[in-house]
């Protein structure tokens, strides 16, 4: 047997986040070197979206529950971070009716964004615990309800958000390297959550709730932890995005954005961190490409009434096709791995992957829905 150094083994077994971060680094360097303003903007925003997609992956991939509330927490993070980062004068200009208590608060950029994320996580923690015992349709509806509630509050709570009107005057603190760095950190966070004991237990509940309960896994607590963590990431992404776009309204945090983030996750594959990254890259590329076509068609007046919504039409068709033909996304359930470290193969992971594949194919052989073991009541 080869003599193995503990550190080397650690790296060998966890090449995924390193690979993904390296990929992001590569993209960042290329964008920087190209120097084209549009590309830098696209990549910067892409990284903030990636943080959101990663947050969604953390919850959805591990718990198996579709959460619609995610973008709501992005909004909370965005507004909170802005309230912390803007100067008192700027705040009084942008949000005339702001609560006097909130006016003097002024934190440096990093602290403000962090606080924004914490506020989002706090709200999630307080609100979500009772919801975590629900499953299936009930879980989806309640998270959707959460999104609506957050949206309505953001739109109507003038004294904090300036209501439905656009909030101006946010400083542009987020640049290419900032968002790149944070998204790389997010990758490590989400990956190690997945590989942690909490992540493992949560996935056990995803695969078989009854079996997991019978070995003492507290499903509700596990889900709650994941939900709070994912809200933190959503708030983080929201804060970063707010300080890039410098002006926004509550309508940026509703169903349209939800669709995009969801599409990114599903296209890439909701069950792996690599899926989140790949999906974000692919969808961003497709989207920007289509948008370019749309703009060209509009400027050239090819169609008199203008071409709008073309991008979304193509994206939604693509999403439907993926769900029909490859529901586990581009990555399947796999992570990107580097197995080239000499003779040490990632044997345990490969066996695990093989077992997962076998389960998938056997589930296709016997119709998955029909063989539900729940007896008379059907799922």
């Amino acid at each position, binding site marked *: 047997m080869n003599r193995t150094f503990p550190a080397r083994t650690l790296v060998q077994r966890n090449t995924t986040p390193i690979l993904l971060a390296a990929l992001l680094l590569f993209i960042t360097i290329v964008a920087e070197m190209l120097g084209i303003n549009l590309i830098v903007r696209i990549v910067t925003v892409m990284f903030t979206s990636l943080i959101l997609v990663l947050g969604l992956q953390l919850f959805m991939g591990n718990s198996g529950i579709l959460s619609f509330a995610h973008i709501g927490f992005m909004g909370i993070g965005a507004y909170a971070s802005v309230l912390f980062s803007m100067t008192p004068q700027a705040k009084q200009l942008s949000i005339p009716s702001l609560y006097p208590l909130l006016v003097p608060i002024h934190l440096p950029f990093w602290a403000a964004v962090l606080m924004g994320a914490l506020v989002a996580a706090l709200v999630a923690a307080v609100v979500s615990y009772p919801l975590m015992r629900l499953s299936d349709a009930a879980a989806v509806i309640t998270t959707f309800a959460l999104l609506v509630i957050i949206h309505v509050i953001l739109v109507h709570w003038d004294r904090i958000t300036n209501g439905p009107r656009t909030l101006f005057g946010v400083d542009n603190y987020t640049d290419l390297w900032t968002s790149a760095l944070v998204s790389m950190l997010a990758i490590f966070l989400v990956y190690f959550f997945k590989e942690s004991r909490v992540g493992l237990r949560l996935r056990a509940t995803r695969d078989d709730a009854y079996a997991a309960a019978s070995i003492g896994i507290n499903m509700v607590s596990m889900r709650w932890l994941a939900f709070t963590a994912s809200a933190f990431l959503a708030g983080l992404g929201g804060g970063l995005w707010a300080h890039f776009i410098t002006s926004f309204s509550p309508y940026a945090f509703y169903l349209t954005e939800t669709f995009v983030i969801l599409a990114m996750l599903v296209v890439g594959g909701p069950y792996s961190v690599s899926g989140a990254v790949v999906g974000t890259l692919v969808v961003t590329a497709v989207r920007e490409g289509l948008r370019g076509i749309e703009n060209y068609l509009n400027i050239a007046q090819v169609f008199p009434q203008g071409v709008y919504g073309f991008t979304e039409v193509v994206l939604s068709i693509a999403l439907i096709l993926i769900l029909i033909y490859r529901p586990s996304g581009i990555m399947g359930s796999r992570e990107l791995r580097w197995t080239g470290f000499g003779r040490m193969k990632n044997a345990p992971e490969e066996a695990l992957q093989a077992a997962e594949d076998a389960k998938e194919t056997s589930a296709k052989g016997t119709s998955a829905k029909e*063989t539900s073991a729940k007896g*008379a009541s059907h799922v």
Partner: protein
Amino acid sequence: MLVLKEVHARYGAITALRGVSIEVKEGELVALLGVNGAGKSTLLGTIAGILRPWQGSIHFQNQAIVGKTPEQITRLGIALVPEGRDIFPSLTTEENLRLGAFTRKDRSEYRRDLEEMFSLFPVLGERRGQLGGTLSGGEQQQLAIARALMSHPKLLMLDEPSLGLAPALVDQIFELVARLHRSGVTILLVEQNVDRSLAIVDRAYLLNTGSIEMSGTPAVLRTHADIEGIYMGDRRRNLSAER
């Protein structure tokens, strides 16, 4: 009428059936016996088309039925009364029965059969307008069987009809099954109640962890099969009986 050859089936990740071969001839009353988890329900589910075997063949009246949907198999004349009865709680007794006649070509003649069912099962007649969910366990069992009969099945499969019923009702159910048999219905009966089953059937199969341990007439089974051993999970005996 029904022939299974070397059927292997999985239930989730568990191999539930290993090389099962059974046969049911027309007019017979055949029992599938075995403990919980032996694979009896899986076998019925495989015949009915809910589960698809990954190996082996199933022929019904010389027609291969592996791969057909449950709807198609029902239309061929196989009716399954599942464990747990699965009657429709928010439909009335009459509506439950009416739906049972769905596959019949002369569906609109169902009223005639309704009266027949009510004479066969008087208690159902009393409750014809009541919702299925308000019926007692025994009544629901009768309803489930009557509903299956409404389709005039060529083969009736019953999955543990006596499960969870009071002893007096258990008597009734077995008597009913025997009576149906006498009137010419071909029946495949899955049961845990060995004694009662052997008393009324033509033949029986003994299923143990997914494979047929033994088969034959009641007389043969009573003398040769160590039924007690199987039920008590006698490991010693199972190991030494390698054939």
